[in-house]
C-alpha cells in the first residue's frame, strides 16, 4: 500500500464567498420542491406489512372453523407484562368439536399491557394465538382496550393449518387399533 498524500488546498475565492455552495444548496432544495412527497398520508394510505410482523395478538380458528385454543394457559404464564387472562373451560361436546377436551371459557388480552413481544405465539402448542397485521388499536376507555374472546376471534379469523395435529393423532390412533 502506497501512501497517498492528500493535498490540503486552501479555499478558492469562489468558495470563500459562499456563493457557489449557496446556489448548489438552493438547486438541491429546488429538486426536492418539485419532486414527489415522501410522506405517507396515513389514514388513506397504509404501509405494506412485511411477513412476520408482530401486530395485535389474536386467536385463530382452524380451517374447519373450530377453536384451536385448548386453554392450556402457557401463553398466560409466559406473558411478560401479564396481559393475558384465561378462564379455562371444557368443551360442551358434540359433532365436529370432539377433537379436543378443553377450550377457554374467557380469554382476555389487555392491550394496554401487551408489549407485542410475540412470546405467546411462540409458546402456543396449538398454534392458536398469532400476532397478525393489525397495528392500530384505539378506544375511549381502559375497558375498551381489553380484547375479549369474541373480539380476539373476530380479529384473528381463520388461518391455514399445516399440521392438523389432532386429526393426525386420531388417524394414527385408529390405524393402531385404538392404542396410543
Amino acid at each position, binding site marked *: 500500500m502506497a501512501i497517498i498524500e492528500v493535498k490540503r488546498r486552501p479555499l478558492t475565492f469562489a468558495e470563500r464567498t459562499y456563493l457557489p455552495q*449557496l446556489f448548489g444548496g438552493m438547486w438541491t432544495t429546488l429538486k426536492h420542491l418539485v419532486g414527489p412527497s415522501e*410522506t405517507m398520508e396515513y389514514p388513506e394510505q397504509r404501509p405494506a406489512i412485511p411477513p412476520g410482523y408482530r401486530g395485535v395478538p389474536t386467536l385463530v380458528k382452524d380451517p374447519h372453523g373450530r377453536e384451536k385454543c385448548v386453554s392450556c394457559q402457557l401463553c398466560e404464564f409466559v406473558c411478560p407484562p401479564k396481559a393475558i387472562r384465561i378462564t379455562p373451560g371444557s368443551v360442551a361436546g358434540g359433532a365436529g368439536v370432539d377433537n379436543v377436551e378443553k377450550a377457554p371459557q374467557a380469554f382476555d388480552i389487555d392491550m394496554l399491557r401487551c408489549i407485542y413481544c410475540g412470546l405467546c405465539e411462540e409458546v402456543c402448542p396449538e398454534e392458536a394465538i398469532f400476532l397478525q397485521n393489525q397495528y392500530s388499536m384505539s378506544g375511549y376507555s381502559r375497558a375498551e382496550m381489553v380484547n375479549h374472546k369474541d373480539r380476539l376471534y373476530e380479529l384473528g379469523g381463520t388461518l391455514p393449518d399445516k399440521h392438523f395435529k389432532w386429526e393426525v393423532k386420531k388417524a394414527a390412533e385408529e390405524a393402531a387399533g385404538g392404542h396410543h
Partner: protein
Amino acid sequence: MADFFFGLPALVQALAKGAAVVLVIFPVAAACSMAERKVCAWIQSRPGPNRAVPPILAWIPGIGIPQRLGLFQLAADGGKFLFKEEPLPDHVHRFYYTLAPVVAMVPAFTTITVVPLGAYIGMQGRVVPLMLANVDVGMLAVFAVASLGIYSLILAGWASNSKYPFLGGVRASAQLISYELSMTLSVLPVFLWVNAPGSPGTLSLVRVVEFQSGHLHSGWGGAWFLITMPVSAFIFAVALFAETNRQPFDMPESESDLVGGFHTEYGAFKWSLFFVAEYANMIVGSAVFALLFLGGWNVLPWVPLASLLEGLHRLTGSALWLRPLVAGIISMGILGGKVLTLIFIFMWVRWTVPRFRYDQVMRLGWQKLLPLSIANLIAYTVGIYFLQG
C-alpha cells in the same frame, strides 16, 4: 362609481385608498405565512398542512384543492389567534408590552404609501404611477420609516422584562445598524445614475422605474439595474434578508438559542401582529427591490409597459389594451408577480441556508458587506462620472 369616488373630499379619497391597500396587504401577508409552510413542506418532501376543511363545506366538489393548499388551515389559525385568550404575563411592562405589536404594524404598512404599486398610461403617453403618495423623497421615506420597525422589536424585548426577549431585542438593533449602512450605500449608485446632471434631483422610486423603461435603441436606459449593477442588487438583497430578520439572519428570533427571541413572552393576537408585520415588511422590501433593480412594472428589460400594451394592441387589434384600467391591472400584475417571486426566493433561501451565528452575522455585515458596498459605490461613482461627463 368613478364619478362618485372623485366627487368625495380629498381626505376621504385618501383614506379609502389607504384602507384598500391595507386591506389587500394584510391578507396577502397572512397568506404568505401559509405559503411559507407549504414551501417549507415541499422543500422537505412533505405535503404540508392539507387536512383542515369546515365540515359544512366538505361536500362541495373541488373543495379538495383549497383544502390541500391549506387555505382553511390558514383561516383556522387566524381565527384561533383572534379568539384565544390574550395572555398578559405578570412581570411585563404592560403599556409598552401592549404597544410593541402596534409599533410593529405601523411602519410595515406606512412604507407602502410611498411605494408605487403599478402604473397606467395617462394623457399624452405620460406614465402615471398608482401609489398613495407620489413624493420625491420616496426611497428615503422607505428607509426612514422601515427602520422605525426595529423599535417594536426593542420595545418588545425590553417590555417583556425577561432575559431572552431582551437579548433578542439587543441583537435586532445591532443587526439593523450593521446592515442598514450597506443597504443604503448599495442603492446610492442607482440614484447617482438616475439623477443625471441637469435633471431635478429626486429619490422617487417612480423616477427609478421610468429610468429603467427605455427601448432597445436607448441603450443602457432600458436595462434593469440588476443587469447594470449586479453587486448593488446582491448587497441590497442580502441586507434585505437581514433587515426583515429572515433566515439566515434571524438573530432577533433565534429559536435555537433564544427560545423565541423578542416575542418569547407574546401570544395570541399580539404575536400574530408581529408575524404579519414581518411578512408585510417582506412584501414592501420585495416591492422596493423589484422597483429598484427589476424594472418595476416593465415586463422585460428593454420592453417598457407602454410598448407591451401597444404590442398587445397591435397583435389583437383590440382597443381594450389602451384603456387605463387594463394598463393599471396589467402593471400591478407584473409588479405583483415580481414581488411574489421574490417572496418565494425569500422562503426558498430560508429553507436552504443554515442560520448564521451572531458573530458571523456581525462579521459578514461589517467586514464583508460594508467594504464591498463602499468599493461598489466608489467604482460606480467614477464610472458614472465618465459616462455622464
